[in-house]
Protein backbone atom coordinates (compact mmCIF):
# COMPACT_ATOMS: atom_id res chain seq x y z
CA UNK A 1 0.00 0.00 0.00
CA UNK A 2 1.26 3.46 -0.80
CA UNK A 3 1.35 6.24 1.73
CA UNK A 4 -1.48 8.01 -0.08
CA UNK A 5 -3.68 4.89 0.17
CA UNK A 6 -2.87 4.51 3.87
CA UNK A 7 -3.85 8.15 4.49
CA UNK A 8 -7.04 7.71 2.47
CA UNK A 9 -7.94 4.52 4.42
CA UNK A 10 -7.17 6.25 7.70
CA UNK A 11 -9.47 9.16 6.85
CA UNK A 12 -12.24 6.76 5.75
CA UNK A 13 -11.99 4.76 8.99
CA UNK A 14 -11.99 7.97 11.04
CA UNK A 15 -15.18 9.08 9.26
CA UNK A 16 -16.79 5.71 10.06
CA UNK A 17 -15.69 5.99 13.69
CA UNK A 18 -17.12 9.52 13.87
CA UNK A 19 -20.43 8.34 12.41
CA UNK A 20 -20.49 5.38 14.82
CA UNK A 21 -19.88 7.71 17.78
CA UNK A 22 -22.70 9.97 16.53
CA UNK A 23 -25.06 6.98 16.24
CA UNK A 24 -24.05 5.94 19.74
CA UNK A 25 -24.78 9.46 21.00
CA UNK A 26 -28.26 9.33 19.50
CA UNK A 27 -28.81 5.77 20.79
CA UNK A 28 -27.71 6.60 24.34
CA UNK A 29 -29.80 9.81 24.31
CA UNK A 30 -32.86 7.88 23.15
CA UNK A 31 -32.16 5.15 25.71
CA UNK A 32 -31.86 7.62 28.56
CA UNK A 33 -35.08 9.39 27.52
CA UNK A 34 -36.89 6.04 27.29
CA UNK A 35 -35.62 4.97 30.70
CA UNK A 36 -36.66 8.27 32.24
CA UNK A 37 -40.10 7.96 30.63
CA UNK A 38 -40.40 4.41 31.94
CA UNK A 39 -39.22 5.49 35.38
CA UNK A 40 -41.67 8.38 35.44
CA UNK A 41 -44.45 5.93 34.59
CA UNK A 42 -43.37 3.62 37.41
CA UNK A 43 -43.03 6.44 39.90
CA UNK A 44 -46.42 7.86 38.95
CA UNK A 45 -48.03 4.44 39.43
CA UNK A 46 -46.32 4.14 42.81
CA UNK A 47 -47.49 7.60 43.71
CA UNK A 48 -51.06 6.74 42.71
CA UNK A 49 -50.95 3.64 44.88
CA UNK A 50 -49.48 5.59 47.78
CA UNK A 51 -52.01 8.37 47.68
CA UNK A 52 -54.94 5.99 47.25
CA UNK A 53 -53.70 4.07 50.28
CA UNK A 54 -53.29 7.31 52.19
CA UNK A 55 -56.77 8.42 51.16
CA UNK A 56 -58.21 5.08 52.29
CA UNK A 57 -56.36 5.36 55.60
CA UNK A 58 -57.58 8.91 56.17
CA UNK A 59 -61.13 7.90 55.22
CA UNK A 60 -61.05 4.95 57.63
CA UNK A 61 -59.92 7.18 60.48
CA UNK A 62 -62.55 9.76 59.68
CA UNK A 63 -65.37 7.21 59.28
CA UNK A 64 -64.52 5.60 62.60
CA UNK A 65 -64.09 8.98 64.21
CA UNK A 66 -67.38 10.29 62.74
CA UNK A 67 -69.32 7.21 63.81
CA UNK A 68 -67.80 7.50 67.23
CA UNK A 69 -68.80 11.13 67.47
CA UNK A 70 -72.35 10.36 66.24
CA UNK A 71 -72.92 7.69 68.81
CA UNK A 72 -70.92 9.19 71.62
CA UNK A 73 -71.20 12.94 70.81
CA UNK A 74 -72.17 14.31 74.13
CA UNK A 75 -70.31 17.48 73.54
CA UNK A 76 -71.64 18.06 69.97
CA UNK A 77 -68.21 17.89 68.57
CA UNK A 78 -69.59 16.71 65.21
CA UNK A 79 -70.89 20.15 64.44
CA UNK A 80 -67.62 21.67 65.39
CA UNK A 81 -65.60 18.98 63.64
CA UNK A 82 -63.50 20.05 60.76
CA UNK A 83 -64.59 17.86 57.77
CA UNK A 84 -61.96 16.77 55.27
CA UNK A 85 -63.06 16.76 51.66
CA UNK A 86 -61.46 13.78 49.86
CA UNK A 87 -61.76 15.54 46.52
CA UNK A 88 -59.65 18.40 47.85
CA UNK A 89 -56.96 15.94 48.89
CA UNK A 90 -56.90 14.38 45.38
CA UNK A 91 -56.74 17.84 43.79
CA UNK A 92 -53.68 18.70 45.84
CA UNK A 93 -52.00 15.43 44.90
CA UNK A 94 -52.92 15.83 41.22
CA UNK A 95 -51.23 19.24 41.28
CA UNK A 96 -48.06 17.75 42.71
CA UNK A 97 -47.91 14.68 40.37
CA UNK A 98 -47.61 16.66 37.08
CA UNK A 99 -44.83 18.75 38.66
CA UNK A 100 -42.94 15.58 39.48
CA UNK A 101 -43.28 14.53 35.84
CA UNK A 102 -41.73 17.84 34.76
CA UNK A 103 -38.89 17.30 37.19
CA UNK A 104 -38.35 13.83 35.73
CA UNK A 105 -38.45 15.26 32.18
CA UNK A 106 -35.82 17.84 33.14
CA UNK A 107 -33.81 15.00 34.68
CA UNK A 108 -34.04 13.01 31.47
CA UNK A 109 -32.78 15.98 29.43
CA UNK A 110 -29.82 16.34 31.82
CA UNK A 111 -29.20 12.60 31.56
CA UNK A 112 -29.31 12.86 27.75
CA UNK A 113 -26.75 15.68 27.85
CA UNK A 114 -24.49 13.57 30.04
CA UNK A 115 -24.93 10.74 27.53
CA UNK A 116 -23.48 13.13 24.92
CA UNK A 117 -20.34 13.54 27.01
CA UNK A 118 -20.05 9.77 27.43
CA UNK A 119 -20.22 9.07 23.72
CA UNK A 120 -18.08 12.05 22.66
CA UNK A 121 -14.57 10.61 22.68
CA UNK A 122 -13.06 7.25 22.15
CA UNK A 123 -10.23 5.60 20.28
CA UNK A 124 -10.82 3.75 17.05
CA UNK A 125 -10.65 0.42 18.81
CA UNK A 126 -12.93 1.39 21.70
CA UNK A 127 -15.80 2.68 19.54
CA UNK A 128 -17.19 -0.78 18.62
CA UNK A 129 -17.79 -1.81 22.25
CA UNK A 130 -19.51 1.45 23.07
CA UNK A 131 -21.77 1.24 20.01
CA UNK A 132 -22.91 -2.25 21.03
CA UNK A 133 -23.45 -1.16 24.63
CA UNK A 134 -25.46 1.88 23.54
CA UNK A 135 -27.65 -0.14 21.18
CA UNK A 136 -28.36 -2.80 23.85
CA UNK A 137 -29.23 -0.08 26.37
CA UNK A 138 -31.56 1.61 23.90
CA UNK A 139 -33.28 -1.69 23.03
CA UNK A 140 -33.78 -2.65 26.71
CA UNK A 141 -35.21 0.73 27.60
CA UNK A 142 -37.59 0.73 24.61
CA UNK A 143 -38.81 -2.75 25.66
CA UNK A 144 -39.22 -1.55 29.26
CA UNK A 145 -41.24 1.47 28.10
CA UNK A 146 -43.52 -0.67 25.92
CA UNK A 147 -44.12 -3.14 28.77
CA UNK A 148 -44.95 -0.35 31.20
CA UNK A 149 -47.15 1.44 28.69
CA UNK A 150 -49.12 -1.71 27.93
CA UNK A 151 -49.13 -2.63 31.61
CA UNK A 152 -51.03 0.56 32.35
CA UNK A 153 -48.39 2.96 33.67
CA UNK A 154 -49.51 6.60 33.44
Amino acid at each position, binding site marked *: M*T*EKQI*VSDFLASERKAKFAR*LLLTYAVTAAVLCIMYALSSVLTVMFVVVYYMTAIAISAILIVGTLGLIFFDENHLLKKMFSVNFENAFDIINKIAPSIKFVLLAGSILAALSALIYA*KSGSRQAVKGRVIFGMVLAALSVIASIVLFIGGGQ
Partner: protein
Amino acid sequence: MKKLNISVSSLYDFDSVVIVNGKEVRTKDPKKRKAEYTVETDGETASVAFFSISPFQSKFYLIYAVLYFIITVFGIFAERKKPSERRFSYRADIELPYDENDVKIEFLPFGDGKRFCAVTSACRINETENEYVLDKDLKKRIRRAKRFKFYAFAMIAVICALLIIL
Protein backbone atom coordinates in the same frame (compact mmCIF):
# COMPACT_ATOMS: atom_id res chain seq x y z
CA MET B 1 13.15 -11.46 12.92
CA LYS B 2 14.01 -8.15 14.53
CA LYS B 3 11.67 -6.18 16.73
CA LEU B 4 11.28 -2.43 16.73
CA ASN B 5 9.46 -0.84 19.68
CA ILE B 6 8.44 2.78 19.20
CA SER B 7 7.04 4.68 22.17
CA VAL B 8 5.53 8.09 21.57
CA SER B 9 4.89 10.77 24.19
CA SER B 10 2.70 13.47 22.78
CA LEU B 11 2.14 17.03 23.96
CA TYR B 12 -0.81 17.59 21.69
CA ASP B 13 -3.84 15.69 20.40
CA PHE B 14 -3.14 14.91 16.78
CA ASP B 15 -4.63 12.24 14.56
CA SER B 16 -1.53 10.50 13.34
CA VAL B 17 -0.25 7.53 11.42
CA VAL B 18 2.90 5.48 11.90
CA ILE B 19 4.21 3.72 8.81
CA VAL B 20 7.13 1.32 9.04
CA ASN B 21 8.55 -0.15 5.84
CA GLY B 22 5.49 0.95 3.88
CA LYS B 23 2.95 -0.67 6.24
CA GLU B 24 0.74 1.11 8.74
CA VAL B 25 1.38 0.13 12.35
CA ARG B 26 -1.40 0.50 14.94
CA THR B 27 -1.05 0.79 18.64
CA LYS B 28 -2.63 -2.03 20.67
CA ASP B 29 -3.42 0.02 23.73
CA PRO B 30 -4.47 3.50 22.70
CA LYS B 31 -4.12 6.20 25.31
CA LYS B 32 -4.58 9.90 24.86
CA ARG B 33 -1.01 11.14 24.76
CA LYS B 34 1.07 7.99 25.00
CA ALA B 35 1.30 5.22 22.44
CA GLU B 36 3.41 2.11 21.94
CA TYR B 37 4.00 0.59 18.53
CA THR B 38 5.67 -2.76 17.92
CA VAL B 39 6.88 -3.95 14.52
CA GLU B 40 8.66 -7.13 13.49
CA THR B 41 10.85 -6.98 10.45
CA ASP B 42 13.37 -9.13 8.58
CA GLY B 43 15.58 -6.28 7.42
CA GLU B 44 18.54 -4.58 9.10
CA THR B 45 16.94 -1.14 8.81
CA ALA B 46 13.41 0.17 9.23
CA SER B 47 12.06 3.10 7.30
CA VAL B 48 9.76 5.02 9.67
CA ALA B 49 7.27 7.69 8.72
CA PHE B 50 5.23 9.34 11.48
CA PHE B 51 2.97 12.22 10.51
CA SER B 52 -0.27 13.87 11.43
CA ILE B 53 -3.44 13.66 9.38
CA SER B 54 -6.30 16.11 9.24
CA PRO B 55 -9.80 15.31 7.91
CA PHE B 56 -9.43 18.49 5.87
CA GLN B 57 -6.79 16.76 3.76
CA SER B 58 -9.51 14.64 2.18
CA LYS B 59 -10.58 15.44 -1.39
CA PHE B 60 -14.25 15.86 -0.46
CA TYR B 61 -13.60 17.58 2.89
CA LEU B 62 -16.19 20.28 2.20
CA ILE B 63 -19.03 17.86 1.49
CA TYR B 64 -18.20 15.77 4.56
CA ALA B 65 -17.95 18.85 6.75
CA VAL B 66 -21.34 20.23 5.66
CA LEU B 67 -23.07 16.81 5.81
CA TYR B 68 -21.70 16.15 9.30
CA PHE B 69 -22.80 19.61 10.38
CA ILE B 70 -26.36 18.90 9.22
CA ILE B 71 -26.70 15.37 10.63
CA THR B 72 -25.41 16.53 14.01
CA VAL B 73 -28.27 19.06 14.09
CA PHE B 74 -26.11 22.10 13.27
CA GLY B 75 -23.22 20.90 15.34
CA ILE B 76 -25.19 20.34 18.57
CA PHE B 77 -24.25 16.64 18.70
CA ALA B 78 -20.87 17.16 17.03
CA GLU B 79 -17.64 16.28 18.75
CA ARG B 80 -15.92 19.26 20.30
CA LYS B 81 -12.63 18.96 18.48
CA LYS B 82 -11.18 22.17 17.11
CA PRO B 83 -9.62 21.62 13.67
CA SER B 84 -6.00 22.69 13.49
CA GLU B 85 -3.83 23.91 10.65
CA ARG B 86 -0.78 22.61 12.55
CA ARG B 87 0.76 19.37 11.41
CA PHE B 88 3.96 17.46 11.98
CA SER B 89 6.07 15.09 9.97
CA TYR B 90 8.90 12.74 10.90
CA ARG B 91 10.78 10.47 8.54
CA ALA B 92 13.85 8.47 9.37
CA ASP B 93 15.77 5.32 8.58
CA ILE B 94 16.54 3.39 11.76
CA GLU B 95 19.25 0.74 11.89
CA LEU B 96 18.28 -2.40 13.81
CA PRO B 97 21.48 -3.83 15.34
CA TYR B 98 19.75 -5.84 18.09
CA ASP B 99 16.92 -8.37 18.21
CA GLU B 100 14.84 -5.89 20.16
CA ASN B 101 15.32 -2.20 19.38
CA ASP B 102 13.71 0.63 21.30
CA VAL B 103 13.02 4.11 20.00
CA LYS B 104 11.49 6.83 22.15
CA ILE B 105 9.83 9.79 20.45
CA GLU B 106 8.97 12.81 22.59
CA PHE B 107 7.04 15.73 21.19
CA LEU B 108 8.64 19.15 21.52
CA PRO B 109 6.65 22.39 21.94
CA PHE B 110 5.16 23.66 18.71
CA GLY B 111 7.04 26.13 16.54
CA ASP B 112 6.45 26.67 12.83
CA GLY B 113 9.39 25.13 10.97
CA LYS B 114 10.98 23.87 14.22
CA ARG B 115 11.89 20.31 15.17
CA PHE B 116 8.77 18.39 16.11
CA CYS B 117 10.30 15.67 18.28
CA ALA B 118 13.32 14.52 20.22
CA VAL B 119 14.27 10.91 19.53
CA THR B 120 16.11 8.73 22.06
CA SER B 121 17.49 5.38 20.97
CA ALA B 122 20.54 3.13 21.08
CA CYS B 123 20.09 2.60 17.34
CA ARG B 124 21.65 4.75 14.64
CA ILE B 125 19.01 7.02 13.15
CA ASN B 126 19.22 8.89 9.87
CA GLU B 127 16.52 11.57 9.98
CA THR B 128 15.29 12.98 6.69
CA GLU B 129 12.38 15.00 8.05
CA ASN B 130 11.50 16.28 11.51
CA GLU B 131 9.37 19.40 11.60
CA TYR B 132 6.22 21.18 12.65
CA VAL B 133 4.36 23.05 9.94
CA LEU B 134 1.60 25.65 9.93
CA ASP B 135 -0.13 24.46 6.78
CA LYS B 136 -1.65 27.41 4.92
CA ASP B 137 -3.69 25.14 2.63
CA LEU B 138 -5.24 23.45 5.64
CA LYS B 139 -6.01 26.85 7.14
CA LYS B 140 -7.83 27.91 3.94
CA ARG B 141 -9.81 24.65 3.86
CA ILE B 142 -10.85 24.97 7.50
CA ARG B 143 -12.06 28.53 6.92
CA ARG B 144 -13.89 27.49 3.74
CA ALA B 145 -15.65 24.67 5.61
CA LYS B 146 -16.69 27.08 8.39
CA ARG B 147 -18.11 29.50 5.82
CA PHE B 148 -20.06 26.75 4.03
CA LYS B 149 -21.47 25.50 7.34
CA PHE B 150 -22.69 29.02 8.03
CA TYR B 151 -24.29 29.23 4.56
CA ALA B 152 -25.93 25.80 5.06
CA PHE B 153 -27.32 26.90 8.43
CA ALA B 154 -28.57 30.22 6.96
CA MET B 155 -30.20 28.45 4.01
CA ILE B 156 -32.01 25.94 6.24
CA ALA B 157 -33.11 28.75 8.57
CA VAL B 158 -34.53 30.71 5.60
CA ILE B 159 -36.33 27.60 4.30
CA CYS B 160 -37.83 26.92 7.76
CA ALA B 161 -38.88 30.56 8.08
CA LEU B 162 -40.53 30.46 4.64
CA LEU B 163 -42.31 27.21 5.50
CA ILE B 164 -43.65 28.75 8.71
CA ILE B 165 -44.79 31.93 6.95
CA LEU B 166 -46.34 30.11 3.99
